[in-house]
């Protein structure tokens, strides 16, 4: 059975986010592993004496205190676990939950998990997401892992591949054609419904531009995609306007 790991951090513990994670697992017929991320960078920074926090709802200002922050993280983790359990029970999804402490930038992708799909739900500052987005976008590089990413993307589309965008990072047209042929083979006779979009250089900006044009609801990439490295995962996620699924 497939396994999907969903990372949750302090800013994502909402019922709807967790429900989406559970629905994703249900749709893929996968077991769900909820990973609550305690960002070690943030914890370490809390020791800086002048650091202050502005509360997002009350807009009150308060000095950062390590003990209080850890306490608040524990509260959030408990809430995340409870909500995840409730949603999973409702959808009859097998689930587990754990707390992981580490650096998002340097360690998150190496977190100790055997999940096939690693879902990173956006950690950016945007407070609302368009409700009308429906397309599924996948970056296809021709590797085995990107084949699996394409399969995952296929399983998430409803109307056969009509809303499927296959992004092809290729340095030239011939390479793009080769990738398209590979992907077409992977798809069945409905391949004609999918949109093949060549990327100029496969950079983050390049992908963001395509995502904005295609109105994507989710982006799927393979584990080793360079989007996940440069310049930092945190910044990549912050700039993405949709959740990111990493396929191993």
């Amino acid at each position: 059975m497939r396994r999907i790991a969903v990372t949750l951090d302090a800013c994502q513990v909402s019922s709807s986010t967790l429900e989406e994670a559970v629905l994703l697992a249900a749709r893929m017929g996968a077991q769900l592993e909820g990973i609550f991320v305690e960002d070690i960078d943030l914890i370490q920074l809390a020791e800086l004496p002048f650091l202050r926090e502005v509360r997002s709802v009350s807009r009150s200002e308060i000095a950062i205190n390590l003990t209080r922050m850890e306490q608040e993280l524990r509260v959030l983790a408990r809430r995340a676990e409870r909500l995840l359990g409730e949603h999973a029970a409702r959808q009859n999804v097998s689930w587990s939950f754990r707390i992981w402490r580490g650096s998002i930038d340097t360690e998150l992708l190496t977190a100790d998990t055997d999940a096939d799909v690693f879902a990173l739900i956006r950690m950016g500052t945007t407070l609302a997401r368009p409700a009308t987005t429906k397309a599924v976008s996948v970056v296809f590089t021709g590797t085995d892992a990107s084949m699996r990413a394409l399969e995952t993307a296929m399983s998430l589309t409803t109307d056969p591949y009509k809303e499927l965008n296959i992004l092809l990072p290729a340095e030239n047209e011939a390479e793009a054609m080769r990738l398209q042929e590979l992907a077409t083979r992977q798809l069945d006779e409905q391949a004609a419904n999918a949109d093949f979009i060549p990327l100029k250089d496969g950079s983050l900006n390049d992908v963001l531009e395509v995502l904005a044009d295609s109105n994507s609801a989710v982006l799927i990439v393979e584990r080793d995609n360079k989007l996940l490295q440069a310049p930092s995962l945190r910044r990549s996620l912050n700039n993405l306007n949709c959740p990111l699924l990493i396929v191993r």
Partner: protein
Amino acid sequence: MPVKKLESSVLYRRCDAKQFEFETTAELEDLAELIGQPRVVEAVNFGIGIQRNGYNLFALGPAGTGKQSFIQQYLETHAPGEQVPPDWCYVNNFADHRKPRALELPPGKAVLLHNDMDMLIEELGVTIPAVFQSDEYNTRAEAIDQELNERQEQAFESLNKKAEAKNIMLMRTPTGFTLAPMRDGKPIFPKEFRQLPEEERNKIEKDSNVLQEELRETLHKAPQWQEESRQKFADLNREMAAGVVTHKIDMLREAYQQQAKVVEYLNDVEEDIIANFRKFLPEEQRRASLFGIDLPGQEEEMHWFNRYRVNVLLAHDKNGGAPVIYESLPSYNNLIGRIEHTAQQGALLTDFTMIQAGALHRANGGYLLLDALKVLVQPFAWEALKRALESRKVNIESLGQITSLISTVSLEPESIPLDVKVVLLGEPIIYYLLSYYDSEFADLFKVQVDFARDMQRSESSQQQYARLLATLVRKQQLMPFDRHAVARVIDQSARLADDNEKLSTHMRSIQDLMQESDYWARERGEATVNAVDVQQAIDAQIRRADRIRERLEEETLRGTIMIDTAGSKVGEINGLSVMMLGGYSFGRPSRISARVRLGKGNVVDIEREVKMGGPIHSKGVLILSHFLGARYALDYPLSLSASLVFEQSYGGIEGDSASSAELYALLSALAEVPIRQSLAVTGSVNQHGEIQAIGGVNEKIEGFFDLCNSRGLSGEEGVLIPASNVRHLMLRHDVVAAVEDGRFSVYPVKTVDEGIELLTGVSAGARDVDGNFTADSINRRVEERLIHFSMQLQRFARAGKSEDDTRDDGD
């Protein structure tokens, strides 16, 4: 002058079948009008014609006189030509769901509105989702979203850039944001920070504080941007929804433009649908979604759309005329309507679609027939009816509410104007009691429709009666009655009326007789009903009901009940009474005895003393003592003590029809002259000794005849009846035959003197010029006996003896 016995011809007034020109009722036309009740027809014409407040009708008459069938038939004949009342609907009140609104529509339009609204909702279920799935909507909605995102992102981007320029990083915390120092895109941790030169640390700290202020301002603006975005989104939704809803509603407004309240309601519907357009979106659009991808969700209840439904309370055929409604169970709710509830998870829920019309609604604009007694025995029904008629509107309130027994939230539907003519049907006693005790009754039921229990009997009325019977034959799908059968039914009708000059209007009895006659005719395999069948039906009716009579007669024949029908006795006489058991009445003789002695002038009614005599009976007995005093003891004290008793009577006695018999017994005892036991007596007497008419004369004669006949008629037997009762005689054929053969006699008596002469064979006697009664006459003997008592009393008084010590056998 001796009283002559009655000829057999006056004992029974026969309807001569020869007067009918038809062979069977099949040849006769139906009778449309009511016969023999001109007062009723006039009253109904008046009551229906007058259109003023309070002119409702009360049809009073004995049960079975056909009040309901006549009035219903009358109304059903007239109502189709009258104006059709409007239709009424209940619809949701969008301002206050607890107070549903009533809508008036022209006849036939309520159902159209109901269908139109159902169609509207069905269509909007298609068109609204289409609008909200359109490219236009998606583009515009996304643009609003995009604008918000861009505003927020630009603000954070701007902040981010400023921060990055100063080597500061914007980071999320569990409850907000913070600004941390960075180098090469990575945070500077405390250990590293402390190693920085103080000047640099101060600068970072200072820059951080400035940015902190900017961050706070940015966060302050976010809710305002979101609110603006939400408002734009709401305006867009409203615009898109209105685009489709208004167009549809406009078509309905056009169709119902003549009905201002309907248009007003449609305006409210339009507003509500626009405000709740999301309810019309397909379920999948309201389900949870995965990254915007639709997934199965919870079923939405369809109940919500009931708010746009139309509850058709009353719908009329536009050519149907005014309604005529008879409510057989006029309970409170059946009269004024009800609000039904449905149980959901232990709670009782209701809405305007569960409002049900009552009889007053259904009859609105027409006529409502109700049985008065049934209305009165139903809790709160009479008050509710009066309240509706007084206020001229129908308010549907649950009993729980008006009695404050139930405090659950319920509906208060808007009242509906009431324009109805109510016809109450009931026994006369109910009408009189209501008139006396209910002050509002006279204001609300001003038209009295008084059904007589009988009608004049004449040749022409018998012809009409025959047509009435023919109508009943067809209505009841009976076999045709031949003219002899019709004549026999008419005779029986006169017998039911207890008057040979009247015919009964008690249609139920007549109808029963005809149905039973039809049964017997079919049993005999006949194609028409003849007089024999009618007679068999009459005999069978009596046979089924006369077990008690038969038993009483048997006991009399066996001597258990002592009634002599031969010989003579002093102070004893055969009185006649009528027993009524269920719907059957029969006559029976009773021995009445009188004893007299010296006393204070009082006649003791033993029945009254033991409280077995009713007030009318007691009145009759009191009249006797005054008759005695006035006739025989004008100049001296009436020093008589007499006692009267109905022998072997173990039940109550009421009525004064035995008062003449009691007087005869008393006179016999005083005069010491025996009375013929072969005669029986009925009739009341007044203070002047005149014999007055009584009821049940036929049954009484037949009762005595039956006993005498069983013992064997010698020709001596007979009955004394008041002369004024002769016109009531409709005796059985066997009695008439016996009289014809001279085996039985009926004597019409006008005075006590006539009666006592018949009973004793002794002259009653009259006063001569000196004021003395004829020698040896009854009256002379009575007077002498009373004078004797008086003298005796005076002697006792002189001797100083009290009356109480006096001992006298009295006779």
